[in-house]
């Protein structure tokens, strides 16, 4: 067992909730260790559609969530503008949609504090030419899209700057308890296989859909309804505004422009296992059909990937029992296991949405502080208070401008052509990690391999740069092959039209000019 660690707070889970808690706790001057079993955003956070909610979606069904979203939308914009694109969004009702819903929408927005501007169909069409020309009513809302890897990267980097220790690839194997008090946890490092002991004054369980399992390890009860939602990404942006269907929340009611793609979401299917992220072909077909209603032509547009994420829906003890997950509140829940289960120093924060991560973190850390108090000098707070005068949002052409900076010069090269990643971008990350980095890490940080060719060309280039630094061709080759397999998992259900052609080209690349030594690559 490697060296033991200790901190004021041990946060379990490196999704949006956990990173938010680590960030907030650091801000208040607490020492923090965060443990994540895979990589940051490796669970549900990395598997959502990218929408920073305006709140409009919930104004009728769940006004409390709507109000929280409206406030937190503003808050996140000022915390991490670089991770956010200020797209704006539309709520539109189509022919056949219940007109009463659209009629009640403005008042519901007003009551919930959600900004919404009524537009004539003609105005909406001119604001977003891609939208269905047959729209009956339209409202503009301050939707935005958020790059979750960049967002969590910013928050975790700030936390690390304030002294927090972020341990990726560390899974909790057990809790150490003394009587009814949690003292810390044993973590297993999946890279080395070693376990290490972390003691903490409070342990925060921020494991989302897995929080029932983690709570159970400490002898506590958290009931989570795991609800799987399927999303499909198109190879290009189909619209530049987020387009919501102005009806009660239902399957396929939102198309989000995020980075270079558009994502349609989503479904809501209860699953027993939070690791069950299978995608059925019928679900893909239904999503594509739903997108085609909002944006005519989407039905024949190239689909790039399909994936599923599992939402953690929290059911309070003795809460409503019946099955339909759509009707379960999206609001978050903070559970003090001291009062609920009589277990001291253990807190669960779960449910909620990525948009409300700051609020969730604030409430969780309030509870932590109530238990252990604050240190005398929370020095880190001030550093974080300095905000840029104007938010520097991400803009879509930024990546093109970044790529264009190479033009005519003689210093750099483009490695990932689909997403405009330069050799210097990759080399910098590889150097910072001293060669101990995978292509998957480059993907999350830089988006290599996320474009139409799905890594067919750039993954080898990245592997070459890593191999050059690490001088470990065998391991790099293995990582490369794993990366290819992982990419193929997401394209299996969307291999139609141009994407099928791409798949054939990629299969051929991996079997012929890029064939690795030994057995052929077994792609799904």
């Amino acid at each position, binding site marked *: 067992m490697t060296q033991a660690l200790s901190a004021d707070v041990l946060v379990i889970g490196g999704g949006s909730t956990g990173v938010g808690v680590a960030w907030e706790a650091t801000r208040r001057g607490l020492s923090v260790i965060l443990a994540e079993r895979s990589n940051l955003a490796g669970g549900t956070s990395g598997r959502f559609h990218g929408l920073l909610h305006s709140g409009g979606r919930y104004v009728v069904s769940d006004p409390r969530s709507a109000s929280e979203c409206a406030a937190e939308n503003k808050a996140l914009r000022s915390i991490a503008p670089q991770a956010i694109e200020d797209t704006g969004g539309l709520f539109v009702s189509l022919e056949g949609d219940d007109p009463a819903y659209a009629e009640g929408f403005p008042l519901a927005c007003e009551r919930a504090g959600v900004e919404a501007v009524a537009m004539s169909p003609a105005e909406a069409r001119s604001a977003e030419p891609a939208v269905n020309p047959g729209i009956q009513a339209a409202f503009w809302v301050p939707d935005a899209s958020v790059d979750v890897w960049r967002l969590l990267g910013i928050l975790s980097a700030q936390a690390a700057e304030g002294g927090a220790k972020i341990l990726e690839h560390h899974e909790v194997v057990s809790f150490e308890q003394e009587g009814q008090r949690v003292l810390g946890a044993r973590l297993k490092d999946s890279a080395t296989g070693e376990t290490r002991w972390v003691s903490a004054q409070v342990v925060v369980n921020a494991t989302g859909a897995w929080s029932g399992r983690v709570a159970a390890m400490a002898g506590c009860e958290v009931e989570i309804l795991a609800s799987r939602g399927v999303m499909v990404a198109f190879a290009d942006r189909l619209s530049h505004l987020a387009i919501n269907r102005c009806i009660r929340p239902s399957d396929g009611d939102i198309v989000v422009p995020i980075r270079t793609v558009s994502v349609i979401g989503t479904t809501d299917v209860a699953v027993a296992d939070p690791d069950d992220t299978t995608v059925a072909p019928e679900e893909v*077909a239904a999503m*594509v059909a739903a997108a085609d209603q909002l944006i005519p032509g989407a039905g024949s547009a190239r689909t790039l990937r399909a994936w599923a994420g599992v939402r953690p829906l929290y059911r309070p003890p003795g809460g409503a029992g019946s099955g339909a997950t759509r009707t379960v509140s999206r609001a978050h829940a903070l559970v003090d296991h001291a009062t609920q289960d009589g277990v001291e120093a253990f807190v669960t924060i779960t449910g909620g949405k990525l948009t409300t991560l700051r609020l969730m973190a604030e409430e969780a850390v309030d509870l932590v502080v109530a238990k252990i108090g604050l240190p005398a000098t929370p020095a880190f707070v001030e550093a974080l208070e300095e905000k840029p005068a104007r938010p520097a949002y991400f803009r879509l052409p930024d990546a093109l401008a970044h790529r264009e900076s*190479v033009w005519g*010069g*003689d*210093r*750099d*090269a*483009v*490695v990932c052509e689909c997403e405009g990643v330069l*050799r210097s971008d990759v080399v910098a990350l590889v150097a910072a990690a001293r060669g101990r980095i995978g292509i998957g890490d480059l993907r999350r940080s830089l988006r290599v391999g996320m474009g139409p060719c799905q890594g*067919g*060309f750039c993954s*080898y*280039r990245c*592997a*070459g*740069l890593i*191999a*050059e630094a690490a*001088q*470990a*061709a*065998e391991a*790099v*080759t293995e990582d*490369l092959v794993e990366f290819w397999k992982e990419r193929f998992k997401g394209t299996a259900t969307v*291999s*139609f*039209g141009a994407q*099928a*052609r791409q*798949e*054939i*080209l990629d*299969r*051929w*690349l991996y*079997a*012929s*000019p*890029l*064939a*690795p*030594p*030994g057995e*052929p690559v077994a792609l799904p």
Partner: protein
Amino acid sequence: MNRRADAVVVGAGLAGSIAACRLAQAGAEVLLVAAGEGSMGLAPAWLDVLGRMSGPVSSPLAGMQSLPDSHPYARMGSGVVQEAVEFFSSLVSSLDYRGGLEDNMALPTSLGGRHLCAMAPPAMAAGNLDRAGSVAIVGIGAMRDFSACLVAQNLSAGGALSAQGVTVDFAGAGADLGNLDVARRIQEPKLRAQLGAEVLACIGGAERVGFPAVLGLGAHQEVVGDLERILGREVFEIATVPPSVPGLRLSSALAVLRRTLGVKEVIGARVTGFVPGPGGVGGLRVRAASRSQIYEADYFVIASGGVLGGGIEVGHQARSETILGLQIPEGPLGSLGVAVDNSLRPLGPSGDPVFQNVAFAGATVGGADPIGELSSQGICVATGYLAAEVVKAEVAKVARAK
């Protein structure tokens, strides 16, 4: 408006080119129409005939004997495959292909793997990994698509031979080099002399020197000759991702042949359908810039590509051939193709030919798994050749009847 020829060939790839050249050589008036350039410039110019079945195949000729009956090679028989490959070699004799169907050679990949293929141009064949001795693998610093480090370390790890990776600068050639950039610049004698000197300084006693396959386009032989002279040892090329420079050499050679043999071409126009005629197909509907035209002929060779080339469309519901609208039998994505008889005529669901005067060729033909089997080029050459033979025989029959 209509155009007429003895035979219309669809597709400007390897299969279409072979068929068109063979027919034109036999004196037929050939009209070739293609939606774009074929994919020869993607694949290295190696001729994969049969490299893998349940395991590696050491002899394509022997391996062919145990293919299922529905496989194109089994349908035509290994004799025809042999004839076709010989025809190909003599057609592009300027490229001087080495090897044969008796034994596969193992050529290095860009990841240091072993690629089994029947034939290859001399500079690629010289990289045969079954030959003993030490090799140096040369990378060019600014090149995106080749990592000498990956190739050399993986080759050495395989244990068969010792490989040493070196990366050199290509002086004055810029920081962002694609395969084509290097291939064009290396044609400049001064630049390649400098490169040769840089390489010579760091390869020690290696017996052969492997470069990424970018050793010149039109001046390929001069480039290889100069480098071998400077380095004093054999030089070979290692296949890269597209654009493939050796593939482009093959593609240009065939384009020149098509032209010299009098094949009339329309490149960039899509065939959108057909009009019925006495033999099944009377003409093909071709979309020009603003109008459709009908290309009439007695016989048609369709080598419009597989899924990648656009000859087969994979829809949400069904998979179909794009010109005649044939349904494609179910199967994994890599094996989709038109079911054909022994004369490459398309078969209907009942197993009988549905069009008498059409022969399919190339990746459009089903019954194989070209990527998995490493048989892509072999199937193109063999079916392109056979399609031309079938059409030639039919043309002769018509002539006799007249």
